[in-house]
């Protein structure tokens, strides 16, 4: 499985899609968008902070572990850091796989695990 992980302080620019082989049957993409309503209060945006080397290491390990259960061909993971206003994308994940089942499972598990133990924090402003 080919894995690419990026953290960026800039707008997330979604790379154009391309399939690495003629056996890719599913492309799944997730964009997490900053919402106005964060818990109890309305915010103008969120500020994201990461312990980047550890976050990268854990995301990569998660992807390998989850990918062993749900084999996929390519995963691209991009998390924005710093200030992200409402309506902009804080997280982008793309998964290419032969079948949709694996891609959906990997995508769901990746976001779940991100929220469990990957050292990234947000605060509303």
């Amino acid at each position, binding site marked *: 499985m080919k894995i690419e992980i990026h953290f960026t302080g800039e707008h997330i620019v979604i790379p154009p899609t391309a399939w690495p082989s003629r056996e890719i049957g599913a492309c799944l993409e997730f964009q997490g968008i900053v919402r106005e309503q964060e818990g109890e209060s309305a915010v103008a945006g969120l500020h994201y902070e990461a312990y980047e080397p*550890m976050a990268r290491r854990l995301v990569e390990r998660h992807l390998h572990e989850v990918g062993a259960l749900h084999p996929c061909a390519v995963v691209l993971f991009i998390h924005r850091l710093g200030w992200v206003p409402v309506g902009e994308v804080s997280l982008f994940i793309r998964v290419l796989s032969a079948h949709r089942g694996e891609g959906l499972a990997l995508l769901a598990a990746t976001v779940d695990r991100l*929220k469990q133990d990957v050292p990234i*924090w*947000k605060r509303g402003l």
Partner: protein
Amino acid sequence: MPVEIQILAFAQARDIVGFSSRAVPCAPEETPRAIVERLAPGALITHLRVALDCEYADWDAPIGSAREMAIIPPVSGG
């Protein structure tokens, strides 16, 4: 033989311990809990986790040869 290790505190942990980054001489047999207690006496770390060299670790196990210790509040990425 104490060696200098880097102590990092993120997000709410910064407010709890009162710094974001410090280089501190520590002995290999010291535990993360003892180090935090030495740097920020009385700091309430109940809801925090600790990582040594980018791996989650035990508050009460010696730091050994780790060179970086991170104090990690509940995560909220995504």
